[in-house]
């Protein structure tokens, strides 16, 4: 058997043949900066300082999520936003449940089946409850997310999705 390969010419441009973001001299200092404890502390403080603003934004999203009702495209878009930065707002449980809802809706769309309104509703209610709680109860959140995840996995298997 003769194996024939068609060689496609490609130009390979080495890193030292184009301008770098940071030159070699500054590169060492830049790496030290990125790894320094002082910078890590500043970054942590910056994240914490932004958390209240992010919390308010998540609560606005939660209201919009509840108002989305049967509009599934809107529900998915808002749940995705919540999933994207709820954890940065200190609302890990809301983010985790939103992630499960997104996975459910994404997979159902992939197998071309409509998501069950009751499943969507359960997730929306859990997101709202977690987001409006005074404090993010990690243990309770883990339990709720675990149960919803199991339910979604079961329903997806029944629907022929992953």
């Amino acid at each position: 058997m003769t194996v024939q390969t068609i060689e496609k010419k490609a130009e390979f441009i080495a890193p030292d043949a184009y301008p770098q973001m940071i030159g070699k001299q500054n590169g060492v200092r830049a790496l030290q900066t990125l790894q320094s404890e002082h910078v890590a502390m500043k970054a942590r403080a910056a994240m914490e300082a932004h958390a209240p603003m992010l919390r308010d934004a998540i609560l606005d999203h939660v209201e919009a999520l509840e108002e989305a009702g049967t509009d599934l495209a809107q529900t998915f878009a808002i749940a995705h936003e919540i999933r994207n930065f709820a954890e940065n707002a200190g609302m890990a449980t809301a983010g985790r449940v939103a992630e499960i809802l997104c996975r459910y809706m994404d997979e159902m769309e992939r197998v071309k089946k409509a998501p069950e309104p009751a499943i969507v509703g359960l997730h929306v209610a859990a997101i709202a409850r977690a987001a409006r709680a005074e404090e993010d109860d990690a243990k309770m959140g883990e339990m709720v997310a675990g149960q919803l995840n199991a339910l979604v996995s079961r329903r997806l298997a029944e629907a022929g999705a992953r």
Partner: protein
Amino acid sequence: MSGGFEYLKALIVEDNSHMRALLRALLNSVGITDIAEAAQGQAAIEALRLRRPDLVLTDLAMKPMDGLEFTRYVRNDQNSPNPFIPIIMITGHTEKHRVEAARDAGVTELLAKPITASNLFSRIAEIVERPRAFVRCDSYFGPDRRRHRTEGYGGPWRRAEDMEDVDVR
């Protein structure tokens, strides 16, 4: 400890104003203060032209021009001010086909939401410490999509398709 980033200019492309503010604050914490912002791809092209950034952080899902289209413009358009600029794509859409689409558009690094400071900094460190070679062929221009290329390696190649991505002359 700070330094190394004093002269670096960054561009944040993100439709969520809260995320833009958070990213700006994180960049500030390493000493990057010259930061332009855009809420979607079209505005980012304008900012790219006017501000000439050295680093781009971009979201994927934006309207009307998303992060993939914006990246393709940066890498391939003849009017692009810097086709080699490092692009970190920040996205909550981490499904395999979307990751592959980002890679094929020419992003340098991918960062999953929710973001953490350490993840963002590790992507920037990767760009500083291990700058990627670029590949130009008929169907692609951008960072080498195979990360572990051995310098001076002349084959044999494991797959015939390897030759599409890497110069084997």
